[in-house]
């Protein structure tokens, strides 16, 4: 669009203002996590910290179980991501490039399933997990997270496979390669960008999921980080210092992922704008 100078300056001002609004609550959380306990409940609050302390970080990871929560989240999120990638890549390839029946039905069903709220499956899954004695286990979360993240991942992978020319597939077949060889040797390496996108979305979803984690894994030693943070409470008041110290550490992996993979995330978001 043809833009005047004033319009451009205005745009920049809006952008900076918007970014500041996004960052302010984070600023407050980070600053609070370094403040000594006494000044957490002070009113008026000091907008800039006067004394720094690492006490809350020590509390969260030495005295309390935030280390365990993070370990649980790492196990669950990483395992889920690996399984989802493997299954989604295979299914995405089949839907994009192989002559299977019912593709459109499959794609529409996947899209609808990916929109279901967690509550729609919680009661039967809880009953099932309880019956087989899997409540408070890693598989209690890995299995449903895999199922819930597969539809979007399959969509992403299918879109990437569609971009690879069909001729490549036919050429490989003529050279005598089996379907699986063609897939593994030619198509998989060409769709690594799609893998990045699917991996980041799955990891973030598994890292942040709360409802199922709360209902299936509520015992203290099996909590993931979102549940650990939500259920963490002190004897007399909400221990914000410790909660924020744990939170700052818990969102670090996500911040790093976002910085490294921003390109792939944006491509995933705009490629159907699925999930928020």
């Amino acid at each position: 669009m043809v833009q005047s100078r004033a319009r451009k300056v205005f745009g920049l001002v809006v952008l900076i203002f918007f970014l500041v609004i996004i960052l302010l609550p984070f600023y407050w959380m980070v600053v609070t996590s370094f403040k000594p306990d006494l000044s957490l409940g002070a009113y008026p609050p000091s907008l800039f910290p006067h004394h720094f302390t690492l006490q809350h970080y020590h509390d969260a990871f030495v005295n309390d179980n935030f280390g365990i929560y993070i370990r649980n989240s790492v196990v669950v999120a990483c395992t889920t991501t690996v399984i989802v990638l493997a299954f989604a890549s295979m299914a995405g390839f089949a839907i994009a490039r192989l002559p299977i029946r019912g593709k459109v039905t499959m794609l529409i069903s996947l899209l609808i399933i990916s929109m279901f709220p967690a509550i729609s499956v919680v009661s039967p899954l809880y009953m099932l997990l309880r019956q087989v004695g899997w409540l408070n286990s890693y598989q209690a979360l890995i299995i449903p997270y895999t199922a819930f993240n597969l539809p979007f991942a399959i969509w992403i992978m299918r879109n990437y496979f569609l971009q690879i020319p069909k001729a490549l597939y036919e050429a490989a077949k003529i050279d005598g390669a089996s379907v699986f060889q063609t897939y593994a040797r030619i198509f998989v390496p060409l769709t690594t960008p799609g893998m990045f996108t699917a991996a980041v979305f799955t990891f973030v979803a598994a890292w942040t999921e709360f409802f199922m984690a709360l209902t299936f894994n509520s015992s203290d030693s099996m909590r993931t980080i979102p549940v650990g943070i939500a259920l963490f409470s002190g004897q007399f008041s909400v221990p914000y210092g410790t909660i924020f110290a744990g939170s700052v550490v818990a969102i670090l992996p996500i911040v790093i992922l976002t910085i490294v993979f921003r390109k792939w995330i944006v491509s995933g978001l705009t490629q159907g704008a699925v999930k928020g």
Partner: protein
Amino acid sequence: MNQATPNSPIVPPQAVNQKRRSILATDRRAGYGLAAPGIIVIALVTIFPILYSVWMSFNNINLTENGFQMTLNNFHNYSIIFHSSVFWNSAWFTFYYSVVTVAAELLLGLAIAIAIQGVKYLKNISVVIMLIPWALITTVSAEMWSYIYNGVYGVLNYLLQLAHIIHSPIAILSSTGPAVIAMMVADIWKTTPFVVIILVAGLQMIPNELYEAAYIDGAGGWKAFWHVTLPLLRGSLALAGLFRILQAFGVFDLPFVLTNGGPGNSTQSLAILGYRVMFNNTDFGAGSGIAVVSVVIVLIVSLIFLSAFRSIVTDGEGE
């Protein structure tokens, strides 16, 4: 492209057709094999439980030592649900919460996206900053906001006092009106950046020539917005809106931490109500009923949307 195409004069056509059919069959079998693991997991862990919860909702369910007992009670659970004012309050709250937050996010997102479109500075850093709320753990953002909103020492009270909007700190999260608004603000803060990213990408796809043509035709500013920008952005807006609506509809984490459904039941979403009926009252029959109602609403909304935007789904399946 190669010697073995059907037009090749060396091989007789029938043999080619036969060969082709057998290749097709092999390919098809391989396709089912490759798709199976993923599709089976999805079917077993999402579709089957959803159907089973429909069945559960027609039963009275008692938890036993290491299992459960179901006795058919027909529409009893639904009769309780639909005769309960608590359910209707939850449904109403969930409805207006979804509509208001998503409308605000789309409008704000559109305004911001249009304003910052064409800004050449801070590109990388602003993408990262806008993505972080999207990837943020909701319970973390809820704890963050609950500290900001605190009625005794919250920084928001202090800032409002500094600005002379209020005289003394108010209990934001324990009075109905302010609690609802506070929750909406926390939601809008978290998801507007996501909408902005989608719309900025949508705006970039609109070719410059269209604006130039509109300009030559004498349509500037508002007119260009109404007749060029908005129609071409419709797809991205609708898609972002649908996913946000459905997500807002399942809202759980934010009220769970921020208000615990209160004060009273004023921020008790359907998901919170379902959770409480299941895990606080251990009534899994009625709880499943509430889950089924949510599923039906989600299905209706997405089917309406999909029939309107079928082309988005079938794109690329024309071959």
